[in-house]
């Protein structure tokens, strides 16, 4: 799982949708009326069955797929009476399509037994299509009737993710609300993060020892939000480094990260009033290759023996190799990543580890600026929502299991569906 800026941004500010809606007017939310065919009464041919054939599944709804960019028609059906019950010999369902109800039908896909829907994602918008379903078993094939015509079209609103939009809106609103409150001077409580409290100590140690600081921003590019988070922390650290006149050594594995990190450090030196002390050689490119990069970084560690190592960004298998090498040279190490699989390695090998959200909170925490701290406080609303939903679902599912109540189970599943990704 990657946490890219793009996906992060997509998830983060649905408020803009609301703003856009106000700008565009009600038409923004209006769906293009899909060409729907509920086929209960519009079959144009009879199902074909023989004695050996399974009992045919019946089409339910054939309609334009909702909330998409067009090019897809959704086909839904009622399962065959021999699927999971009766003779229970169904292999699956083959979906056939034609541009005319009497024309030549061709297969567009196969759905395994138990399935009741299929999305034909090969349609041309505006073209009318007709479908029928072949119920396949080892003993034969049965055909359903042909559906009425259906056409695909692009939609203006992604209704599949409407729950994400609503929850995202609540979280974003709370973040903006707390930023506003913080700006007005309201005091906000933030728990102490040991790893960040130790940053100054770590830089001071390197200064006293007269050895460099090594900063590794992960091995992903700038389209990964973890890399961006690492660079924002770099901006804070670089300011202190410039003040202390300590040497920073930053080998990177991506060219764009190199260019951005140089600019970040340069501006920090300018802000500290020491532009002359900055050098482009502080940040340098090694290689994009993961293990080539880690080999080079290990070599730098062993030769230059940095007093402090920061690992802040997205890491994979190289995390432990670097952190253990850093440990072996006696460096004080502060790590932070949002890669859950690498966190145990950093925790085992480093002195301090920023776990997941702490990486993203670090820059705001170090800045001590009210607006930034307000944004952190807004996250708590999201946590309250998450905890409440988990608690309610636990109770509902437990009650459903104890009472064996179908209605409570159904309610729990519906509630769960609201908070599940489409």
């Amino acid at each position: 799982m990657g946490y890219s800026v793009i996906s992060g941004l997509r998830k983060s500010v649905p408020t803009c949708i609301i703003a856009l809606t106000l700008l565009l007017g009600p038409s923004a939310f209006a769906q293009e009326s899909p060409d729907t065919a509920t086929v209960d009464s519009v079959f144009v041919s009879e199902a074909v069955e023989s004695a050996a054939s399974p009992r045919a599944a019946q089409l339910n709804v054939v309609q334009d797929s909702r909330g998409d960019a067009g090019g897809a028609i959704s086909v839904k059906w009622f399962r065959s009476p021999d699927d999971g019950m009766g003779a229970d010999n169904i292999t699956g369902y083959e979906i056939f399509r034609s541009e005319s109800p009497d024309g030549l039908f061709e297969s567009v896909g196969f759905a395994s037994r138990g399935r009741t829907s299929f999305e034909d994602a090969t349609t041309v918008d505006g073209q009318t299509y007709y479908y029928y379903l072949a119920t396949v078993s080892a003993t034969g094939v049965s055909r359903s009737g042909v559906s009425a015509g259906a056409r695909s079209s692009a939609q203006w609103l992604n209704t599949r993710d409407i729950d994400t939009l609503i929850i995202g809106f609540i979280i974003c609103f709370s973040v903006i609300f707390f930023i506003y409150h913080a700006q007005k001077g309201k005091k906000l409580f933030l728990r102490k993060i040991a790893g960040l409290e130790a940053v100054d100590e770590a830089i001071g140690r390197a200064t006293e020892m007269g050895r460099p600081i090594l900063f590794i921003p992960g091995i992903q590019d700038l389209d990964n939000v973890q890399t961006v988070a690492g660079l924002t922390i770099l901006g804070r650290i670089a300011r202190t480094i410039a003040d202390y006149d300590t040497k920073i050594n930053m080998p990177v594995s991506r060219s764009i990260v190199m260019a951005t990190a140089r600019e970040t450090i340069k501006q920090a030196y300018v802000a500290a009033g020491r532009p002359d002390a900055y050098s482009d050689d502080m940040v340098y490119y090694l290689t994009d290759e993961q293990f080539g990069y880690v080999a080079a970084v290990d070599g730098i560690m062993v030769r230059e023996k940095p007093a402090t190592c920061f690992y802040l960004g997205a890491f994979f298998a190289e995390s432990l190799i670097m952190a253990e090498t850093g440990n072996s040279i006696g460096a004080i190490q502060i790590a932070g990543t949002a890669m859950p699989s690498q966190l145990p390695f950093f925790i085992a090998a480093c002195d301090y580890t920023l776990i997941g959200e702490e990486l993203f909170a670090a820059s705001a925490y170090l800045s001590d600026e009210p607006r930034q701290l307000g944004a952190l406080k807004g996250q708590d609303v999201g946590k309250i929502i998450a905890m409440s939903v988990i608690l309610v679902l636990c109770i509902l599912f437990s009650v459903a299991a104890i009472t064996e109540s179908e209605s409570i189970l159904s309610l729990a599943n519906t509630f769960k569906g609201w908070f599940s990704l489409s």
Partner: protein
Amino acid sequence: MRRTFPILITVVVGWVLIVADFIPHKPFGNLGDDFALYFDIIAVFAFILGGGNLFRIHLTKVQKKKKDWPFSIVTLGGFIVMLAAGLFKIGNPGGIQGDVAAVGSLFNDMYMQIFTPLQASMFALLAFFVGSASYRAFRAKTTEATILLIAAFIVLLGRTPFGLWLTSGLTGDMSFLQLPNLTDWIMDVPNLAGQRAIMIGIALGVISMSLRLILGVERTYLGGDSD
């Protein structure tokens, strides 16, 4: 201006991509893919910047005979030979028009015979580092470390045939105590719950971070807060 313009780009691209995610209709629907493509194009050009930087730094090191300069000769040698082999397609069966990674080409041979084994060697080092890190992490100095040690012991043993053999006598109501079953429980319940908690925190952190960026509240990546 040096900061206003990048912030403006961040804000516009951020909003546009959010809109694109919730409005599938043209022209919004394809914007996410289009922007990803633009990023790839920029990254390709930036690679020239990175390669140039690598070459310049190590050439300077060799010229000025700075500390550890012989290592720079190895780096430069590898860089130039690999670049020439790929650029001029030396030994490529298809000539200059052939696929850069064609079997039989010098580039492919060096990649498969030199680079891949070196890469595998580095990856293999991980096994030893896991051993040394585990030794430190699993020392039962505190209650938490002891719980970690016991859990790790069960999981490591439960993943082996020996673990199953060791506890295969526990049948019937006691079968849940078989090491593979205990392993599955540790991985599926406490471990998964912990991971999910971290994931929820990460997702919220990403939202907050992204909001700070596209609202222009977070400007540290540009080197400072002031305009």
